């Protein structure tokens, strides 16, 4: 029996990291929003490792935060350890990584959703989408509840037709002992959407009480307290350490001897897994000359003995998992609490989406997160907020909101997803970003908060803080450029101490000194001059902007040229079959992707410069025909 269960502006299907951000963004932009979750206890679940951030992923978290999202704030509130990685490298790749308390992270996020005005959170399994006259208009659950909505955001993660594989065992299931979502997958196919299939895996969770930590290397968090969010003011946090141990010849022997039972090698798993997250069996086979692989033991929270065994993701049978773990120093007597597994799932081939994450062929339908073939909480959250924003804008009849490759990692990711073909789950990496020096984690607010404010997601409070920071940075940069350091005995001494060359006769500006490799902002403060009291994030910003000015300008010039290509628009409904001279491959690819600009068209694999030239001619032909018609 079907019954009417409510009418909303935006319906979000799934309450993982994408769903939470999508729902919050939509409600915060003033849309009546309903978020449906398969299981009320699994909101914002972290079914894989209990960590947020790292290179590129940390950038995404900062970007979501700068737009007014929640992942950064919630991680700050529920972190049990943070480290800033890559500090020996340049600021563009500094990366914050946090261990989260899984349960408390979930509870915290759930409460944020519960307290969010205009947002209802409900437990339900969506069976099929409602589509009328080609437009989405709601969804029906397995219990017959009919939710009506103008826009629907699919954020179903890895649940679509999920299949769990552990050794020779295989059964339908979602991550972490959940039910899979079967009906929805078929419903999407019925709507004419194309699905692909990916695989990912997770290691066993083991009991801290059975581990001998004295045989492992301790990995503490940083002494300095970090925060992801530009809004967080947490200045102290009790931290828990992680632990490092290594596999050895014995481990590898156990694995090799049992390969005949490994689904990845017996052919029981056919779908593509991610190369950046190989199972331990893959690592042992592919890098057979490596005598040891590192394994991190990470706490899953403050109130649990469960430890995550990072580096040992596997789908080997349960008995082999135990045998191999027990070969590691410190794990000789280890007890498994949850066994590792591989999961196969359906994903929506993301070429069917627009740059604002709308399903091209079905107005009102949006998709975000792992359903789009990505992996990672951060990737999910960043798509979630974009899909939520755009669902809200769609309901309000406003222009879509997009980010380009020059704006944000989020922009790089979505452009990649909709333009390129995936052959493994997509993970954000700094090497994917062309304009890395501009897309830093430290300036995510400077890049995005203004935009977030304009679409009505960033609060007045955040915006005020942001404006203040921006002003301070500009003022301090000006001051450094203007202030001349006089040539004096005292200055000479200070410079000598820093092993920096003496000043030229005419002196030098503070900015000039800051450009010297050996001098940072901290060092400037030692000079006998007056210095303003400034918050650390302002100092950092000033230092980076001045020190890397040359490179930043170089990249900005490239971005200028990039933008010009992005500005040459291609109409969405262009009839590519009318563009004579296009190669067949280019035509097919472009019809699929429907690039919005010449720049995007050029990024499609298989499209050549000749195709682009021909396309330009075709667009010009069209334009001229239209103008003559109007005359």
């Amino acid at each position, binding site marked *: 029996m079907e019954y009417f269960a409510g009418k909303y502006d935006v319906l979000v299907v799934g309450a993982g990291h994408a769903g939470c951000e999508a729902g919050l963004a939509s409600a915060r932009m003033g849309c009546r929003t309903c978020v449906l979750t398969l299981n009320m206890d699994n909101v914002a679940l972290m079914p894989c*490792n209990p960590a947020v951030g*790292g*290179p*590129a992923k940390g950038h995404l978290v900062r970007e979501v935060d700068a737009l007014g999202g929640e992942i950064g704030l919630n991680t700050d509130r529920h972190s049990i350890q943070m480290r800033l*990685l*890559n500090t*020996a*490298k*340049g600021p*563009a*790749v500094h990366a914050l*990584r946090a261990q989260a308390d899984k349960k408390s992270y979930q509870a915290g996020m759930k409460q944020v959703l519960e307290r969010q005005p205009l947002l209802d959170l409900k437990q339900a399994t969506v069976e099929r989408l409602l589509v009328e006259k080609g437009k989405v208009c709601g969804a029906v659950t397995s219990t017959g509840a009919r939710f009506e909505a103008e826009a629907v955001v699919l954020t179903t993660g890895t649940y679509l037709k999920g299949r769990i594989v552990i050794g020779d065992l295989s059964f339908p299931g979602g991550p972490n002992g959940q039910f899979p979502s079967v009906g929805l997958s078929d419903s999407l196919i019925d709507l004419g959407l194309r699905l692909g299939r990916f695989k990912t895996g997770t290691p066993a969770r083991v009991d801290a009480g059975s581990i001998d930590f004295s045989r492992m290397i301790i990995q503490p968090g940083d002494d300095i307290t970090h925060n992801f969010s530009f809004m967080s003011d947490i200045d102290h946090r009790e931290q828990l350490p992680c632990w490092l141990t290594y596999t050895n010849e014995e481990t590898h022997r156990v694995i090799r001897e049992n390969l005949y039972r490994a689904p990845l090698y017996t052919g029981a798993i056919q779908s593509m897994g*991610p*190369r*950046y*997250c*190989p199972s331990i069996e893959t*690592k042992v086979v*592919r*890098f057979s000359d*490596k005598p040891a*692989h*590192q394994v*991190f033991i990470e706490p899953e929270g403050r109130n649990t003995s469960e430890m995550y065994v*990072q*580096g040992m*993701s596997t789908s080997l049978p349960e008995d082999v998992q135990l045998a191999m773990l027990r070969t590691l120093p410190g794990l000789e007597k280890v007890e498994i609490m949850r066994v590792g597994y591989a999961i196969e799932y359906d994903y929506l081939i993301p070429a069917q989406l627009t740059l604002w994450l709308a399903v091209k062929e079905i107005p009102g339908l949006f998709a975000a997160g792992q359903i789009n073939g990505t992996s990672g909480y951060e990737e999910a959250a960043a798509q979630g907020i974009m899909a939520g924003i755009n669902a809200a804008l769609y309901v309000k009849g406003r222009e879509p909101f997009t980010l380009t490759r020059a704006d944000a990692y989020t922009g790089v990711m979505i452009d990649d997803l909709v333009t390129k073909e995936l052959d493994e789950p997509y993970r954000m*990496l*700094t*090497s*994917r970003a062309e304009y*890395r*020096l501009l897309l830093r984690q430290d300036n995510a607010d400077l890049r995005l908060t203004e935009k977030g404010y304009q679409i009505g997601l960033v609060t007045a409070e955040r915006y005020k803080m942001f404006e203040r920071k921006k002003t301070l940075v500009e003022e301090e940069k000006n001051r450094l450029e203007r202030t001349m350091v006089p040539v004096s005995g005292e200055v000479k001494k200070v410079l000598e101490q820093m092993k920096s060359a003496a000043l030229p006769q005419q002196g030098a500006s503070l900015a000039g000194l800051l450009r010297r*490799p050996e001098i940072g902002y901290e060092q400037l403060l030692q000079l006998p001059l007056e210095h303003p009291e400034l918050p650390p994030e302002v100092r950092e910003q000033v230092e980076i902007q001045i020190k890397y000015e040359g*490179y930043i300008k*170089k*990249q900005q*010039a490239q971005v200028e*040229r*990039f933008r*010009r*290509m992005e500005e040459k628009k291609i109409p969405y409904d262009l009839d590519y079959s009318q563009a*004579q*001279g296009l190669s067949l491959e280019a035509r097919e690819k472009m019809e699929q992707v429907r690039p919005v600009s*010449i*720049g995007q068209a*050029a*990024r499609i*694999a298989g499209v*050549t*410069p*000749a195709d*682009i*030239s*021909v396309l*330009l*001619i075709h667009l*010009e*032909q069209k334009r*001229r025909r239209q103008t003559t018609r109007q005359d």
Partner: protein
Amino acid sequence: MLGLKNYLAGGLNLLEDTIAAISTPLGEGGIGIVRLSGPAAFDIAKKIFRSKKKEWSAAEGHRLVYGHILDPAGQIVDEVLLGYMKAPHTYTREDIIEINCHGGIVPSKKILELVLSAGARLARPGEFSLRAFLNGRIDLAQAESIIDIIRARTETGLKLAVAQLNGSLSRKILELQDRLLGLLAQVEANIDFPEDDLEAATGQELLRTVGELLEQVEDLIRGAQAGKIYREGIRTIIIGRPNVGKSSLLNALLRENRAIVSDIPGTTRDIIEEMINIGGIPLKIIDTAGLHETENIIEKIGMEKTREMINRADLVLVVLDAGRELVAADLDIIGSVRDKKAVFLVNKDDLAEKKISVEELDVLAAGRPVLWVSAKEETGLDELEEKIFEMVMGGHLSGTDDALVTNTRHKQALEAAQRHLTDAVAELKKKVPVDVAAIDIRAAWEALGEITGNTVTEDLLDRIFADFCIGK
């Protein structure tokens, strides 16, 4: 053509750059025109052109000015007539410069290289017409023909580029690109996976390797095929069994009696080298001792040397005797040039009785040209010269000269790579973080990708995951 992604990602602009190309058919003694179109055309011309008329570009409209093209060292490259045409009353509706230079390919080519280093970009196939159309200079009716030009030129261009990929320059570029990629992969793997125990490249190590690679790039630029051809000529070697008429052929091509000719097999003992000029292309032509089975130590050494010369040759002329059947020694010779650019010359066409099997030879030539000549009667030599010219020019004597353009493209890419690597070295010396220097290294790689058509991100990721055991 190849490498659009890099082309755009590298910041090159399809429509706003100033483009340049050689725009007339090239030939011996003919006038070559180097044409520039785009906003910087005048500025670029000013950098390399000197005239007695000081303010030569001040006047409006169209003018022809007499003057000289100078290279950066101030040396005169050629005496030219420079035509300048102000937008919008030009073919492309952009500022256009046309440099009319004397004498064949060499100066035109040199001038093209000068304008490229001065900031122009090599025009893509049909790009002048494309601009003319997009800027409203050409009417709708002709759009189709422009598409045809772009398509056709691109196809042949592509074939050429692929053909050239087998050349040694391209092989070296590929090797270089591979090393750059390996280096980048190491740096990038460390950035993206800092918690994996990967070997990190320090700034010092990076500096050393990048410096090394920069030297290689510079070597390549110095030795780039196009340049070499004009300095040293195309190495063309004449081989064949004794007494087939190799020395006679050399004399005929030289139009003088340079080599001794006799009916005694084994007349030529040593290698003879001479320069000739075919349609403006210098050829270094090499006559060799006839190849055959022998026990004679001295002959053996001579033949060994010939084999070595074959390897180093750009073009092989295999001479066969029309009056004799193909024998084992001929087959050996043909086999030894399996992978070379070669022309098969059936000499002594004047003989009444022909014994050579045409069918067999056609098979053995494997698609390469077979020509009938007579060194004695000097027949078939024009066809031979034409064939050689065609092969050098990539088979396209009209329109832009594609073979040279492809080479120029290689060189331009190498020069771009050189600039980026020089930047990287300079910055690394200033101790910038490795991830920042990686931006320049990546740009260098992308510049080379213009030739090989690879895209950086995918290749880089493939390399990272192939080289390093990564992942949690």
